[in-house]
């Protein structure tokens, strides 16, 4: 688990964001944005508040940019690890540990005092509250926007002179600006200015957070409703089909009854033979109906017969050719619901044909092999492949890369589950896809 975490590029990306935040200090400091010059001129020229306000704004913006990277990095890293390990508490604990750690690293590297002060604590608390409140409903980009506003707002508290005694704004630059403000009698203006901006941005961040998480929640509810509707539709059309199939048994009963009565009434051996043939045909139709109606109906069936049946179901009436690759004995018997398994394979084959549609050298292969007493049935194509992200979704009802509602793979999954079989998808972008249905040992007989 940990190893797979270390392999994930998204995790490294987030750690990268945090490190970038740390090193950013060497490229983007007070000198680079002209803050140092501004402060010098502010000190020497005995100027008015005009330059002071500009200097404060630059300082707060700089601090926000610097802080944003490691806060966001830590937050998203916590999210990702918490999700992957399925331990929601990690989403709070990780930022709580990583962010103070960041401050320690920064202070060890730079002479500039970049203190983990009351402000940092407050910010951490605000972000954690946001984390607890939003419960995964926000996308990373929205989270970044909200966090940047929150940081920008709270940063202003550092510039309020009267808050210094509570541990705000202990950095050298902040201290200097506040001193100057006191000297030139701008203390109250600076307080008002800072407080107003702080309130505007913090309130704005809260409103955004509430708005986006409600919007996201609404979207999710809509999405779930959509899936539920699709599933309801599927089960209803399924039920309709079942009733129809069910009614087929009634005429079949009349045929079988009279047919068997004929063979009782006549002595002609040929007619008896015909009746026998009719009877066995009726029996197989009846078995098929049972298999369609009851998904727990199973019979031992030779792989050869299954393949023939798949070919007949898939290819009758078309001139398509399906290649079969037997890597095992076609006489092996498997315990399956032949009708349903056939429909599942035909679904996979249809998907494979769609994947190579329009390709000149498109190849579809039905592969059958044994692997440690399991029997694997696979359908492969050499189409463009499925991305890992799509692979997670394709089994869901309603997902489709085509225009029709995707029911096919949801059905395949249902059949596999009914047979106690597992499904595996192996897809390489640009090389093609193979989907395996792996029948467990107990359903295979040699």
């Amino acid at each position: 688990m940990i190893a797979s975490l270390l392999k994930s590029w998204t995790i490294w990306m987030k750690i990268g964001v945090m490190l970038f935040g740390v090193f950013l200090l060497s490229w983007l400091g007070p000198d680079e944005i002209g803050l140092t010059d501004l402060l010098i001129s502010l000190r020497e020229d005995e100027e008015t508040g005009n330059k002071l306000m500009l200097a404060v704004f630059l300082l707060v913006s700089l601090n926000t940019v610097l802080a944003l990277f490691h806060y966001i990095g830590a937050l998203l890293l916590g999210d990702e690890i918490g999700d992957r390990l399925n331990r929601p508490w990690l989403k709070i604990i990780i930022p709580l540990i990583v962010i103070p750690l960041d401050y320690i690293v920064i202070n060890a590297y730079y002479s500039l005092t970049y203190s983990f002060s009351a402000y940092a604590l407050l910010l951490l608390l605000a972000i954690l509250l946001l984390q607890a409140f939003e419960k995964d409903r926000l996308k990373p980009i929205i989270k970044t926007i909200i966090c940047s506003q929150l940081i920008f707002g709270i940063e202003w508290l550092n510039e309020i002179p009267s808050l210094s005694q509570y541990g705000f704004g202990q950095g050298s630059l902040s201290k200097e600006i506040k001193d100057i403000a006191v000297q030139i009698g701008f203390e109250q203006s600076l307080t008002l200015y800072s407080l107003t901006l702080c309130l505007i941005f913090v309130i704005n961040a809260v409103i955004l957070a509430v708005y986006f998480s409600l919007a996201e929640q609404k979207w999710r509810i809509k999405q779930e409703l959509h899936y539920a509707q699709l599933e309801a539709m599927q089960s209803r059309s399924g039920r309709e089909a079942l009733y129809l199939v069910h009614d087929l048994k009634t005429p079949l009963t009349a045929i079988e009854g009279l047919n068997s009565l004929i063979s009782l009434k006549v002595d002609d051996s040929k007619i008896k033979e015909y009746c026998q043939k009719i009877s066995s045909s009726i029996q197989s139709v009846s078995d098929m109906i049972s298999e369609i109606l009851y998904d727990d109906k199973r019979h031992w069936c030779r792989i050869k017969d299954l393949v023939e049946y798949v070919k007949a179901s898939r290819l009758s009436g078309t001139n398509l050719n399906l290649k079969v690759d037997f890597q095992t004995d076609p006489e092996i018997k498997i315990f399956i619901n032949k009708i349903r398994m056939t429909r599942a394979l035909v679904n996979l084959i249809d998907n494979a044909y769609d994947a190579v549609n329009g390709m000149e050298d498109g190849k579809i292969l039905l592969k059958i092999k044994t692997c440690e007493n399991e029997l694997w049935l696979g359908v492969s194509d050499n189409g463009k492949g499925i991305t890992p992200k799509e692979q997670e979704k394709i089994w869901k009802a309603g997902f489709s890369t085509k225009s029709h509602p995707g029911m096919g793979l949801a059905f395949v999954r249902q059949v596999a589950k009914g047979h106690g079989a597992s499904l595996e998808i192996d897809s390489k972008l640009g090389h093609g896809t193979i989907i395996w249905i792996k029948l467990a040992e107990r359903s295979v007989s040699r």
Partner: protein
Amino acid sequence: MNILVIDDDASIQYMLSEICEFAGWNVDTANNGKEGLIVFAEKGADVVLVDYHMPEMDGIKTVVGLRNLNADVPILVLTVDERQEIADRFLEAGATDFALKPVKAPDLISRIQLHERLAKLTQSATQQKPSEENDVFVTKGISKRTLCHVSDFLHSNREPFSVDTISKEVGLAYPTVYRYIMHLLDEGKVEIIVSYQKIGRPKNLYQWIVD
């Protein structure tokens, strides 16, 4: 012998009538459960064949109605429904046995004959000592003659059998036999022997406990 066929499908009515007439029995037909009860009340029958899916009154209600009129008449259910729960509900309602559609003429004839024989056996038994026992069994969905039939088989062949085998040997449907075996198990007359096979799940076998 008089057979009453209750089925809403004309072609099946015709087919069942032809088979019964071939076997030399008289047939009355009814299109649904309601009609069936009226015909049975007027004319009576030695064996009743009942369909499951019918308009007006379905098979289960019909069986209950028939049992109210007569506690002993063998009621054979003909159904396309293979679900065990449906079979259970029928037995609960008082049906004697099942046949799954499509059914072949010789099978149906021998099944009807079996129930006729069983009915005669218990008739003579109950005439000797008319007890309340019978009614108790009927309400629980267990009829005494079928119970005797199943337990006689196990009693005289002291080996373990699967429900499948017993069902074939005694000529009753699988759900019927299963239910009676469960009853005998509750009564402590029969024990389970688990048989592990080469393939598939282990199978339960049932054996009469030597007393």
